[in-house]
């Protein structure tokens, strides 16, 4: 323990004394959140800002570039800022889904360089506390009998990742996701209000946003869509897989850079992420921002993204989001 701590401290000290050497070109790091302040991308950038603070000589700036569900930033880094060595842009699984369904235009995941992750969040199947559903099995049985008998709602449009979580549940029962009764709201807040008010019966949200509602006891989480059971307030909540349904939805949060960034600069960022992952500060800021550990940088991340993209394309094609 003490040795670990000593090593971490030594590592930090080393990175503090050698910032100019380690970050030859990265002299004014910037994290671009492709949305309005206050949302998920903002949080993603805050993780980098705090977590990477010790890795660079200069403090990281967070800038906002909302517009077109992240498409504006994605296109900018594919057209004009392709070689900006100072800037990383936040992305999530939702952005990958948009790439897969062609919402971001002609550019694909191969047109940017994925650098590192900030952490992960997971899908959650939520009902009201007094709902007739007490287990995922009951809900799935109803969905299997008639996919349009249950009113499902969430904060994203049809084809967004919120819809995708619901579509995966319906697909697991063997029915077509297009038969589902899905109600699209403007953001998770409105959808939670509709769930509490009884307008919708099931809400497919995220674990991160449910954390603040768990103690209040006005909603019940039927299942988390993670591979393994989570800790903390969710220790009692079984995963969908435990209940016998092979559905999983990990929301990966991370960062990409332009395609033409030099290998040396790219490596500087990858090393910075890897060094930060080893520090207790990184774990702390991840927890503070409601994220669960998922630390991938460089090639590891690229491999994961490629695997994700293949799955996303497959699901999206099945769900009718990609027309051939």
């Amino acid at each position: 323990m003490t040795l670990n701590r000593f090593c971490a401290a030594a590592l930090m000290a080393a990175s503090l004394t050698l910032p100019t050497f380690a970050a030859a070109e990265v002299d004014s790091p910037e994290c671009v959140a492709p949305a309005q302040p206050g949302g998920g991308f903002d949080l993603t950038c805050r993780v980098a800002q705090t977590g990477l603070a010790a890795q660079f000589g200069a403090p990281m700036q967070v800038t906002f570039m909302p517009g077109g569900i992240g498409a504006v930033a994605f296109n900018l880094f594919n057209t004009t800022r392709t070689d900006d060595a100072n800037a990383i842009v936040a992305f999530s699984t939702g952005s990958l889904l948009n790439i897969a369904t062609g919402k971001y235009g002609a550019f694909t995941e191969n047109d940017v360089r994925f650098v590192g992750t900030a952490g992960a969040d997971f899908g959650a199947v939520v009902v009201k506390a007094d709902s007739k559903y007490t287990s995922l099995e009951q809900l799935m049985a109803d969905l299997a009998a008639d996919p349009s008998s249950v009113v499902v709602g969430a904060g994203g449009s049809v084809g967004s990742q919120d819809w995708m979580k619901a579509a995966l549940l319906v697909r697991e029962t063997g029915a077509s996701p297009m038969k589902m009764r899905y109600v699209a709201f403007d953001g998770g807040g409105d959808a939670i209000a509709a769930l509490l008010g009884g307008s919708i019966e099931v809400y497919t949200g995220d674990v991160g946003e449910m954390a603040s509602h768990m103690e209040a006891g006005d909603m019940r989480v039927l299942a988390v869509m993670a591979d393994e059971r989570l800790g903390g307030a969710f220790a009692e909540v079984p995963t969908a897989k435990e209940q016998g349904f092979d559905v999983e939805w990990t929301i990966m949060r991370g960062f990409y850079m332009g395609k033409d960034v030099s290998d040396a600069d790219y490596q500087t960022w990858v090393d910075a992420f890897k060094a930060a992952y080893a520090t207790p500060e990184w774990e702390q800021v991840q927890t503070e921002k409601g994220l669960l550990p998922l630390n991938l940088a460089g090639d590891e991340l690229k491999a994961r993204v490629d695997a994700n993209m293949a799955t996303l394309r497959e699901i999206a094609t099945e769900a009718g989001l990609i027309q051939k």
Partner: protein
Amino acid sequence: MGDVLSGLATGFGVALMPFNLMLVLLGCFAGTLIGALPGLGPINGVAILLPIAYGLGFPPESALILLAGIYYGAEYGGRISSILLNVPGDSGAVMTTLDGHPMALKGEAGRALSLSAVASFVGGTIAVVLMSLFGPLLAQFAVTFSPANYVALMVFAFASLASLVGKSTVKTLLGALIGLMLATIGIDSNTGVARYTFGLPDILAGIDFLIVVVGLFGMAELLHLVEQQVSGKLKTLPVDKSFVRWADLARTKWTILRCSLIGFFIGVLPGTGASVASAVAYGTEKRMAGAEGQKTFGTGDVRGLAAPEAANNAAAGGAMVPMLTLGIPGSGTTAILLGALLMFNIQPGPLMFAQRPEIAWGLIASMYIGNVALLIINLPLVGLFARMLTIPQHYLTPLIAILAFVGIYSIVGNPFDLFMITWLGIFGWFLRKLDFSLAPVILGFVLGGLFENNLRRALSISGGDWMILVDNWKSLLLYALALLVVAVPVWMGRRARKMAEADI
């Protein structure tokens, strides 16, 4: 009741600490300025200052008090440029231009500014009193408001706005239609299909309301001013030392009270905010003013000024209710405040009042103080603001242009939006040339989007059964009210005509 009083006592204990008191005042002052600048509104003010408040390492209650001060300060400030420049300072202040600016043109800018400050104060205070007394109860009611109820609410809003019909019914309807068409741009949430985006990623998520407001109002007004300047029709306004009179307050007291309540209830509902509240309040008041009001509203009627200002400030307070009591953000700005709470590891919701009373009640108490502070800050500044009108036009026009461009660019940082406000400005200027009123365009834009989304939500809930729209007492009540606002003035008009005929 005892809980509320002891809670408030705790809250005032927190909010009256010298440091927090200073932050309330600072926030309110900064908010007023942010609100007054066209392009920057409460949502951007809070969003821009959130990282700063977080970075300064304030205790959570102090940071929230500062941010909340900026929030309602901006709702106060939005009226200033509406009245003086005919450019809404933020989206909730669109309706304020209708009677506020004509008053300024008549040399009554000071009167308009001070009256609207009082109306804002009353609206804001009524909202915070109702919030402390019935907050949790109201929030419980607000979540039961289903998409079908929202459809009924929008029908009511459209009905009360029928009074906005100006000289030409056709042009008003066309204007509303243009607004509806602008609202359809972007990804359709019910099918995931991009509508009218023509492959432009910048409008994939639709056109931001603020851009429509700044473009159609701000830039169009600018072009109008330049045109007048070139053609030499521009009149210089006399120095204006008018101030609100007791008679004005006596005349508007019921308007302010009614609109505060309307604004508060619409604000409490998640999804509708200050812009809908002020529009409904203005429409209702114009209807209530009868035949005489139809002539004076829109030409500088004090009631037409007081109504939207009381309503938008009450709505700003109302929007805090579901955020604080349920952890559900009811508007864009409260969503950011919720994000701020989460950044400080505070879980909003019913438990916040039990677990962190100093934050929940401190915030509420700071709203009482903030409202008083804003009135005190705003009244003496009226003279200073009013003098802005005496700035020669050849300085003022470029100044508005710079403010609008900087404001829009600072929020989004996307040059495309600058082209967008310019195009919309030219379009708005053409519409004005053709004698269109721009208010129906804006309202079509706001209400149309809400109407379409909720109608389609309601129908997907019912599986396509239209009966869902009328099978609930809340919807029926709203339809009845809608019928009433349309029918009563017609009936009154007829009776008045009959009485006049009988006299002859």
